[in-house]
């Protein structure tokens, strides 16, 4: 039961198969704190991607010899559910999942104040429930929100988005079919305050000029994703009613 490769991915009006413009990201929704046991959690739906992230920690490291004397150790597991892709995937971790677990860990660590909690571990789990291209970026995005939900102090949120080249045009946030049939796919993760790129990978072919444009396009996508992350975190805590706001105006000082 495999998908037929579509004839064209982008039409004459520069509209993509799913109706998006070239520089549009997929509709994205993030929910925060949806798992009861985890210290922090979040869920993202981005187009057809459905990804869950959970954080446990900081807590004691097991096994003990993995502990670092001067900071927390971040452990990350990126994993795809067997039913998440077109052809059932074996539950055993694949080489791709191991590589992604590593690069995602290296991407999120710069954002965390690990030096505040020596000899502990922060365990991060990313489960892809349904995949449609760009799962490592969506995974990083939702993981960063889960870390914030866990109350782990961070320098900045990390936002991720892929950009690339499809049928000669430079596009943002590629779906699976666009990635497979396109000329280049470049996932990128970004921390805006430090202008820091913490994840950068690419496969495909890009000239030097195209590369520069694609980097800027991806960073722009990351900034859009960042707004969505912040809104999601705020939405969880919007409590104040209008009556409360009025009372606050009148009274002062009770902290």
């Amino acid at each position, binding site marked *: 039961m*495999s998908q037929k490769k579509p004839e064209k991915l982008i039409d004459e009006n520069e509209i993509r198969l799913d109706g998006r413009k070239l520089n549009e990201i997929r509709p994205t929704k993030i929910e925060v704190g949806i798992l009861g046991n985890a210290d922090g959690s979040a869920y993202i739906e981005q187009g057809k991607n459905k990804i869950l992230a959970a954080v446990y920690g900081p807590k004691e490291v097991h096994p003990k010899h993995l502990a670092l004397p001067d900071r927390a150790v971040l452990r990350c597991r990126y994993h795809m559910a067997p039913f998440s892709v077109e052809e059932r995937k074996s539950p055993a971790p694949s*080489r*791709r999942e*191991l*590589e992604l*677990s*590593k*690069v995602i860990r*290296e991407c999120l*660590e*710069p954002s965390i104040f690990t030096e505040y909690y020596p000899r502990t571990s922060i365990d991060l789990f990313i489960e892809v429930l349904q995949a449609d291209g760009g799962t490592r970026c969506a995974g990083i995005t939702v993981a960063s929100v889960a870390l914030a939900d866990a109350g782990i102090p961070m320098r900045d949120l990390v936002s991720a988005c892929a950009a690339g080249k499809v049928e000669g045009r430079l596009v943002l946030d590629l779906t699976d079919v666009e990635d497979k049939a396109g000329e280049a796919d*470049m996932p990128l993760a970004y*921390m805006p305050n*430090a*202008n*820091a*790129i*913490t*994840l*950068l*990978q*690419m*496969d*495909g*072919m*890009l*000239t*030097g000029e195209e*590369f*520069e444009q694609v*980097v*800027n396009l991806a*960073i722009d996508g990351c900034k859009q994703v960042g707004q969505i992350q912040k809104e999601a975190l705020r939405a969880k805590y919007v409590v104040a009613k209008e009556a409360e706001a009025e009372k606050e105006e009148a009274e002062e000082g009770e902290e």
Partner: protein
Amino acid sequence: MSSIMASRVRQKRIAQLISRGKRLDGRGLTDYRKVQVEVGLIERAEGSARVRLGKTEVLVGVKFEMGEPFPDTPNEGVLTVNAELVPLASPTFEPGPPDENSIELARVVDRGIRESKAIATDELCIEPGEKVFVVFVDVYVLNHDGNLIDASCLAALAALLNTKMFNYEVKEGEVKIKPGYKPLPIRNHPVAVTFAKFNDKLVVDPWLEEEQVMDARLTMTVEKDGKICAIQKGGYGYFTAEQVLEASKIARQKAEEQRKLVVKE
């Protein structure tokens, strides 16, 4: 039994020098270490090459097998890249199944070859949809003194250029080997260039001690026409957008230089 970890004093020295534009071994910031390439040293393999990049040493062997093609590419041969961080190469390498470092190394080497379409896989079809050649590229790290990625990619390229496949014909669904050999059809020459970041400085071809001090690393694989075909950022730090663009310019230039060491015109 010595530890390969550089002392703190030495690490500080390395970082200080780099901030002033110099390196401990006297190289310029964008200079590669001396490269030695030897090909065809393993006769049992269809192709082989050994690259010494400074003291880093990588051996790549190429083997052929016949197998089934992937369903979405029924007329194309298959490429498989594997890497082993052989325990004798470093006190930090443990025996056992491939860990995340050897998997990352294999996948980065693979990406460079695959995305640049270096191997003409369409010429490796024996029977469309049924039988194709499977090319196994095995990267064997023999000594780790930093920058395994560039050394492995260079050795893989040299090994592929050295690879010979036997002549054959298909008679009644059976593959019959004929006398003589022909070179594996190679259409592109991807070369990886790895940078290490030290604050605001970028350094090409970090050796082991520099790798212990660096903020992060960035590898760009460039194909023969100067296009970038693979990128991999590694390590816990980050690069600014400006640094990434600067690296892409330097990478294209260095790749051309390095390519000449392996590809004889």
